[in-house]
């Protein structure tokens, strides 16, 4: 495996996903779990952007350095970037929802320890 930019970025993204999942599975505190989920989703974003990267090319914005006629030969894939923009925005919304629910849970039991919530346990 060559040490190219897209390989480094993809490895880092996969590592972030694993770190986030490990934290979400082992932590007991709901706030820490929420932070771990955001770390994992950042990892997914990094992997997606790395998939769209082509070696030696530049961002898909046309200006003096990237003339319109040469665009197809000079730019990287714009589709994953558009997808990641959407994913980031939805991720912010999901984080806000998780925080609001965490607040509601704290209000009912006065604790954020997930082990104290026994309602769904058998």
């Amino acid at each position, binding site marked *: *495996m060559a040490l*190219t930019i*897209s*390989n480094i970025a*993809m*490895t880092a993204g*996969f590592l972030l*996903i*694993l770190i986030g*999942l*490990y934290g979400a*599975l*082992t932590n007991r505190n709901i706030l820490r779990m929420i932070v771990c989920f955001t770390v994992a989703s950042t990892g997914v974003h990094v992997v997606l952007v790395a*998939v769209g*990267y*082509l*070696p030696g090319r530049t*961002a*898909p*914005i*046309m*200006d003096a350095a990237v003339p*319109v006629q040469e*665009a*197809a030969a000079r*730019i990287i*894939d*714009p*589709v994953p*970037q*558009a997808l990641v*923009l*959407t994913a*980031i*925005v*939805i991720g*912010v*919304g*999901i984080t*806000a*929802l998780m*925080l*609001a*629910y965490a*607040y*509601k849970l704290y*209000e009912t039991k*006065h604790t954020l320890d997930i082990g104290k919530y026994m309602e769904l346990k058998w």
Partner: protein
Amino acid sequence: MIKRFLALLLLFGIGAIFITLLLGYTPDTELNLTARYYADHTAQDLGAANIITAIIVTYRGLDTLGEVTVLFLTAAIVGLVLAHNRQHSGAGQRELPPSGELLTTGSRLLVPLILLLGVYIFINGHLTPGGGFQGGAVIASAILLILLTEPTKRFSHRLIAALESISGLFFVVIGVFGIFLAGGFLDNRILPTGTVGALFSAGAIPIIYSFVGLKVGAEFSSMLANLSETEEP
């Protein structure tokens, strides 16, 4: 202990999948068919310099409308979930220590500049790496700075809701204009596309993205206001 072991086992499994994906991955050397179409046609057809903006606002405009709807739904649910304790905790506010001189003066200086930067980012969304979502987030960060300086400050929910619904309405109305004046829903060619790279170019893209920016800024601000208005029970 057994739980931690199981978690590690699961992670090893997922990690093995990731490693196979990573070893089998070879980056493309050419753009694929979809990306090539966007690269070749964006400038001539839509007049936008930023291809990502063209994809988000025009080619996939309907998806963006859905995305903005999801965001609106999130803001509405956050408001709904946190609404109850606003009623009975309104009176008994606890005293907060005053925020420092640096924070107060700094936020007085920075808030207008941050707002200006947000507006700049979403007006130039078709030219620079920016756009409505980024600009809206920057505007909401100015609101966050105000809340940090003055945690008891209350924003008018009616104003935020009005701003949000009006920009959402204009977004859809401009999209419907596209059906009658151009090729279809959310087509940006209802206005002249102009020269690539000019501020007044790319048809309706800057206008739509400005409304998206206002809407996203209002939604994030309402989430921040709702979260800050919750008090210790």
